[in-house]
């Protein structure tokens, strides 16, 4: 038993890399970004789709697609999973990386959080290594303004070498300007010049040695990036690369010999695989820090201090758990008692209809099996399910969304982690279990927010033991 790449990786979410264009003038636009930066909000605002947006990571399960038509041109928007990096530490990152690398998007929009730009720049810089055709969208500008964070978008654009547009996607602000730039980049009217990051003499020398061997063998992806990845190749990338190029680049004899000499040389300089990875990531993080300091001014004190005070109350030893129990208790109380009234009404109404249907059957003189099958079987079951399940769901989900939007859910995970850990599970399971009270299917899907495969499996399997509100005992007892 075990979670293999095949059972947890991109294979299961049916993400398709090849997007079919119905017209050669169509452009494919990838939407990338860290989790929780309003990526799906941007996607929905542009495509008019109603993908559920929420503020925990892993909301985008696979690549969602939508259309956006502008000046008679069709843009196929692909919403890829939110990730912090493209180093493929998880299934989501693998899907994201594979689409940006091998899905050949005409432009990639990287959505970033204006209130947390430094961390977000990490992904922007990693994306720029793979493709030059990037437009950076600095979202949540309104919230940044509230926190008195000022961002010099022109300077940011200069530093990154690509267009940068500020937006507040929730109010639809800036989206038009964003798509202006996307259109220009996608049709080649706007060239982008992201500066190349230097990884230090040792790594650069290694890349130089590999480049002449690799460059003639790849097309459609930057050879320099491929060289860098060959130095520290993981199996998933090797597979994706081989699939894209049609040949196994890493298996090439000349390249393998070159790689082993490079590694010998690197080892003389005391650079092992871990050190190399550190070097590469450090350069990216340092560059992000540098850009951040050039472009962003945030008040030193006061910034975040209010949030932190609230956090101290919500997660302290004395008040953290009582507040949590109270809040969840109130939500369940409202759901259960509140649902009784519409439930009563619905069942009265629906069962009145059943009586009429029975009369109708008698009137027609239909055989008793027809009445049994359709009226007592199909209709009555349907009526029961609707009257029992619809009202609590209609109450629970909006309440849960409120809790989600307030950002309280990660605090629950923080409070509960120790206890879940004792059962070899993860604190985030508290969220998927709470979601399970609404609907087990949603709870199981939500388990993707848990990183470790083992903990995720535990959360997925045990979610079923949380009674969803259609299975709340008080209801079933009352109705039967």
């Amino acid at each position, binding site marked *: 038993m075990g979670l293999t790449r095949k059972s947890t990786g991109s294979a299961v979410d049916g993400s398709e890399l090849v997007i079919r264009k119905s017209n050669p003038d169509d452009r494919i636009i990838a939407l990338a970004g860290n989790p929780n930066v309003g990526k799906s909000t941007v996607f929905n605002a542009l495509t008019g789709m109603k993908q559920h947006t929420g503020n925990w990571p892993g909301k985008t399960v696979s690549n969602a697609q939508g259309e956006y038509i502008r000046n008679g041109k069709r843009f196929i928007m692909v919403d890829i999973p939110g990730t912090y*990096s493209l180093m493929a530490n998880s299934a989501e990152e693998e899907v994201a990386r594979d689409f940006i690398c091998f899905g050949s998007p005409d432009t990639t929009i990287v959505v970033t959080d204006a209130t*947390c730009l430094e961390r977000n720049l990490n992904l922007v810089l990693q994306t720029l290594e793979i493709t030059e055709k990037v437009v950076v969208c600095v979202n949540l500008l309104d919230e940044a303004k509230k926190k008195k964070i000022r961002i010099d978008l022109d300077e940011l654009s200069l530093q990154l070498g690509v267009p940068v547009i500020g937006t507040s996607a929730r109010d639809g602000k800036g989206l038009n300007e964003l798509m202006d730039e996307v259109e220009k980049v996608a049709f080649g009217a706007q060239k982008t010049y992201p500066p190349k990051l230097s990884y230090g003499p040792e790594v650069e020398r290694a890349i130089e040695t590999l480049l002449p061997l690799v460059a003639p063998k790849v097309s459609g992806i930057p050879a320099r990036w491929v060289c860098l990845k060959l130095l520290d190749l993981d199996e998933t990338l090797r597979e994706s690369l081989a699939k894209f190029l049609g040949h196994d680049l890493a298996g090439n004899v000349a390249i393998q010999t070159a790689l082993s000499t490079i590694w010998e040389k690197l080892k003389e300089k005391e650079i092992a695989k871990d050190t190399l990875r550190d070097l590469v990531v*450090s350069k990216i993080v340092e560059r992000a820090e540098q850009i951040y300091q050039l472009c962003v001014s945030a008040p030193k004190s006061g910034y975040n201090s209010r949030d932190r005070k609230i*956090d101290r109350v919500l997660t302290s030893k004395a008040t*953290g758990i009582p507040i949590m129990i109270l809040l969840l208790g109130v939500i369940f109380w409202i759901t259960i008692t509140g649902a009784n009234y519409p439930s009563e009404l619905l069942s009265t109404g629906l069962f009145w209809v059943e009586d009429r249907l029975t009369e109708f059957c008698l009137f027609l003189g239909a055989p008793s099996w027809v009445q049994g099958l359709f009226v007592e079987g199909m209709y009555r079951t349907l009526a029961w399910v609707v009257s029992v399940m619809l009202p609590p769901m209609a109450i629970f989900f909006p309440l849960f969304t409120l809790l989600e939007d307030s950002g309280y859910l990660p605090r629950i995970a923080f409070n509960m*982690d120790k206890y879940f850990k004792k059962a070899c599970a993860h604190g985030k399971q508290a969220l998927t279990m709470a979601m399970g009270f609404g609907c087990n299917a949603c709870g199981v899907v939500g388990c993707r927010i848990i990183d470790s495969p083992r903990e995720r499996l535990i959360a997925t399997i045990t979610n079923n033991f949380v009674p969803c509100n259609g299975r709340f005992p008080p209801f079933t007892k009352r109705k039967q």
Partner: protein
Amino acid sequence: MMTQDTPQPLNTLPIGRIGTVSELVSHDSERRRMLDLGLVKGTKVTALQKSPSGDPVAYFIRGAVIALRTEDASKILIRCLA
């Protein structure tokens, strides 16, 4: 007890104090996850808040609040600053 010179595990950093990362002792995907958080050498980390049970602890890292379990934090060596 706490001097500038000896690296100590992050989980021993008292709440409210700041340290800079000097070394990561984890490997492979665990190490990559730490690097993704921006925990490279020299990064400032502030210990913000313990959870009700004492584990995990919330840290302020490069503009974001991140909770780390003791077992993960113990694999990050830091030098205490203030």
